[in-house]
């Protein structure tokens, strides 16, 4: 497939009087692991929400797997949405369901599998995200921050998506947990042949995971390349973001790994 998995063309977004995106263009090719970075309020999460169809842009076009997000009937829209999984920043687990039921939910919604198959598939997903079968009985309120992210990841993977979108996957995790989660995402991404787009401002995550980095600033994609090339771009935001003392330490560490 030469077609881009995500393609954003000439996107304009306005909230009231404020322009968030102006003429933004962005493509993600199949099999890539792209990190979208940018300062607070630069519209990263807005862009992500537009890609998954929760917000509509003021102007411009977004295509996922070469298809528009809206139009063409309920069946087509639903089929398209089943081809990508989303990990929300705070997990967005259904608090009234147990972990097991949370992961089983999208499978049950399909109404194609019997309970035995669903049980086996949920156990497999739990194992994939390195959780134990007994964790399935817990309620979301009883989980630690790291476990919430893992369960949310398992749920996002339940329908075998081709594209995975992660919003701040490591926010709220300690460095250890965050490292483990990053490793897990990378392994699963490779093993399942996923295309991954993650929104982050955690440089450790970014340096360890991403094959390419997109920098969102000044209402558009400022730079889009491998991390080594992006940090050489001469722009005040990029200098600030990547070349501060803390950041260069993070990048060095990755090179030593």
């Amino acid at each position: 497939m030469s077609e881009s998995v995500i393609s954003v063309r000439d996107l304009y977004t306005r909230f009231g009087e404020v322009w968030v995106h102006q003429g933004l263009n962005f493509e993600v090719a199949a099999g890539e692991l792209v990190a979208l970075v940018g300062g607070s309020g630069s519209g990263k999460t807005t862009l992500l929400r537009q890609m998954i169809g929760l917000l509509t842009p003021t102007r411009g076009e977004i295509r996922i797997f070469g298809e528009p997000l809206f139009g063409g009937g309920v069946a087509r829209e639903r089929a398209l949405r089943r081809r990508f999984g989303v990990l929300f920043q705070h997990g967005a687990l259904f608090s009234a369901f147990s972990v097991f039921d949370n992961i089983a939910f999208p499978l049950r919604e399909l109404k194609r599998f019997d309970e035995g198959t669903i049980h086996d598939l949920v156990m497999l997903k739990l194992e994939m995200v390195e959780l134990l079968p007994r964790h399935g009985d817990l309620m979301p309120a009883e989980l630690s921050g790291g476990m919430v992210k893992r369960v949310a990841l398992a749920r996002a993977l339940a329908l075998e998506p081709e594209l995975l979108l992660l919003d701040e996957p490591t926010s709220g995790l300690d460095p250890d947990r965050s490292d483990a989660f990053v490793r897990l995402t990378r392994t699963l991404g490779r093993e399942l042949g996923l295309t991954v787009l993650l929104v982050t401002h955690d440089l450790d995550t970014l340096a360890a995971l991403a094959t390419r980095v997109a920098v969102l600033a000044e209402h558009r994609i400022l730079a889009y390349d491998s991390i080594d090339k992006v940090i050489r771009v001469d722009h005040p935001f990029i200098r600030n973001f990547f070349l501060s003392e803390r950041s260069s330490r993070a990048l060095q560490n990755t090179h030593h790994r």
Partner: protein
Amino acid sequence: MPGPLIQVEQHPEVGCNVGLSGRWTLAAIADEAATLGRQLAEHGRDEDATWDCLGIEALDSAGAMLLWRAWGRALPELLLARPEHLRIFERIDAADHEPPPAPPPRSLLDPVITVGAAAIGFWRQVVDFVALLGQIVLDCLHLLRLPGDLPRREISANLYKSGVRAMPVTALVGFLIGIVLSYLSALQLRNFGADVFIVNILGMGIIRELGPVLVALLVAGRSGSAMTAQLGVMRVTEEIDALATMGVSRSLRLVFPKVVALAIAMPLLTLWTTAIALVGGMVSAQLQLDISYGFFLQTLPRAVPAANLWIGLAKGLVFGILIALVACHFGLRVRPNTESLSANTTASVVTAITLVIIADAIFAVATRGIGLPRAI
């Protein structure tokens, strides 16, 4: 894109050869999962079968799980598969756990256990409620020693939210009930020629009974549910824990102001609604029975002794305290999930209304000798 395909070739000497090809992914198999499962299971029991999976173009864990289950949770002895597909089966093997055992059969004691659990649950609720009431009393004692701790802003805010903002809706409902009551009574009274007694009926009924109960029902639905939901969400978002760590008493800051606010607002709302309902009744009486406003207003004090007004206001006070306490009780019981929030909000309103009706019945019995006009 070709869907999943199964081709079976029978070889008399080596057993059958099951060739699988096409896409075995969730999207491709979803529509015919049951049929495929049955077809595969037919051959899954055949131990001599050779499984040729080399033709499979794409395999994900859903597709692999379908095969795995058909094979009886183990790789078949004769299997041809690509290495990347074998890895998926290894993963499934690692994660494979038999489904949990069925729940134990029902015992004869189950009904007893259910009733007992309900009784214990009810008892715990009562204990918690009494503890909350006790805490409010302790808060009052604390405030007597340190009047500076009185949460003035919270009381004022609650008074505005549950008192002032409730005035339009209680007025509307009161006015309409007054009209309806007056209209229906007028139809009956006219038959007996007892037109003038409309004042007695409306006065007694509304001031002593209907006014306070009507307001209590509206406030329980309006402010009681809001208070429960507010406290519940504060529990879910750990705001109550944050308050506790700052050394702020949750009962003094959250529960006490609500109770005080409703204790002040409810008698006032009762007065307001009663007055409006009487106006409604008066208008209707004038239209139906030609009873002039002047006559109505003159007769009212003689028909209804002032004690009834005090009974009505006392009911308002008690109902207000009850509604606020019940709302806070259930709000603090919310566990951090959406289901619990909705269940407790429902329970809060239902319990508050029930308790209000029970308290009203107690009032009716306790005040049966007070405020009744002398027999004519």
